[in-house]
């Protein structure tokens, strides 16, 4: 470890490329925890927003007009407003209205932390898109297929769980893939409410170490890699879900 640190210190001395996140234990710790926060925000928001998409698309097919109107309203609201405004709305708007609670140190703090607000607003933002994505998948499933399930006695929920959703998911996976990539990148907006994610800690580091161009480059590389990993996982999933003789590469 020392050898590596020494080499990067030498790199700085000879070239001016100052990677404090490698040789300086404090910066390294900060950066890794930021990276961890980005991954945490992404994973949790991906899961919640996908669940919102699946449930929302199901509710859109509800016989109750009020439920359909509610889901449509939600989708329009979150698709037509900037995600940064949404985050501010939750953190500065709703967060201020909610009663404060006493934390372990006896301080009065917001009931919902900035990290939790970030997760809530990112999940709702991406979830609104996911509702539409799942719906497009559902609409592509032939009506006759769901009719066959109904004829076998499946309830509306049963049809959705066992037939519609599995088929819709396979159809809409590429679109879902895109949206989740977008969500991962949008986690940087949590910066604006001081969530210590990768961008936020990078700014702290470049403020302290005056290595803006280097940290910028690091950021680009880190996000490229994170998205690359996500795309890889999604592609594996897509392959896992593919059905012999159905969809891509098969005459339908």
């Amino acid at each position: 470890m020392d050898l590596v640190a020494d080499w990067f210190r030498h790199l700085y001395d000879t070239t001016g490329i100052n990677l404090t996140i490698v040789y300086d234990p404090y910066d390294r710790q900060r950066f890794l925890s930021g990276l961890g926060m980005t991954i945490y925000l992404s994973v949790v928001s991906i899961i919640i927003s996908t669940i919102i998409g699946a449930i929302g698309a199901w509710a859109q097919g509800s016989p109750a007009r009020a439920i359909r109107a509610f889901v449509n309203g939600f989708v329009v609201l979150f698709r037509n407003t900037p995600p940064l405004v949404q985050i501010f709305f939750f953190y500065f708007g709703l967060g201020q209205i909610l009663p404060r609670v006493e934390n372990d140190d006896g301080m009065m703090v917001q009931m919902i932390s900035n990290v939790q607000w970030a997760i809530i607003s990112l999940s709702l933002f991406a979830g609104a898109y996911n509702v539409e994505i799942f719906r497009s998948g559902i609409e592509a499933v032939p009506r006759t297929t769901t009719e066959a399930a109904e004829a076998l006695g499946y309830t509306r929920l049963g049809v959705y769980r066992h037939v519609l959703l599995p088929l819709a998911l396979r159809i809409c996976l590429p679109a879902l893939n895109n949206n989740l990539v977008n969500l991962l990148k949008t986690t940087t907006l949590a910066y604006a409410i001081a969530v210590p994610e990768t961008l936020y800690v990078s700014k702290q580091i470049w403020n302290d170490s005056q290595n803006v161009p280097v940290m910028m480059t690091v950021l680009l590389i880190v996000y490229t890699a994170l998205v690359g990993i996500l795309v890889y996982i999604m592609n594996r999933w897509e392959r896992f879900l593919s059905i012999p003789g159905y969809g891509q590469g098969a005459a339908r």
Partner: protein
Amino acid sequence: MAADPSVSQNEYGWTPDQPLIRLVDVHKAFGSLQVLRGVSLDVRKGEVICIIGPSGSGKSTLIRCINALIPVDSGTIRVEGQEVNDPDLDKLALRRKVGMVFQQYNLFPHRTALQNVMMAPVHVLKQNRKEVEVRARALMAKVRLQGKEDVYPGQLSGGQQQRVAIARSLAMRPDVMLFDEVTAALDPETVKEVLVTIRELAEEGMTCILVTHEMGFAREVADHVYFTDKGLIVEHGPPADFFANPKDERTKAFLGQVL
């Protein structure tokens, strides 16, 4: 053998000596289009009836009404005494008694052939998976598809898919099977393999309602043939009579075209 009739009576007061399915003056319109204009017919247990008629005469609509895929406007349909147009109808209870096979097979493409057969008994009837699997394998053998259990629908021929669809319906142990032009999408060679399966079912005593364009098959397996035109049953009778000397002009014209 001195059976007390109340013993075999079901919860709707139906006894097996009554028609298993009874339609009385059924009307159905889609918007302004009158598709069924007063259809009445009875199907007894173990009977095979065939419904024939020109395209658009309401044959599919008729059999879809029987398992409540389509609500009727007026008239009554009873299946084992259970009223299908009752607003509080327990659709699950109805649909476990009535199996249906479609023209386009409509298998679940994301599940293997065996899984297609097993799904509804496991999900809908909550039966034990192991027991269902034993039964499903037997059904696959019955429709002559041993060895195709783990194959996906997309990898099967039309005739094979249709036989899986029949097995899938049978797995629910229905009391009556509805077949809606189940061979219409198949090429001539594979039609036969599906018809063989249906004939075996009929011979085993399964109550069947078949919509078909296969006149030869109808003549062979049907106990009773119904001819529909423009939402009405124009003529009906045992196949020997029906095909040998049709009385109505429309029946004559239709048979003249297809035979």
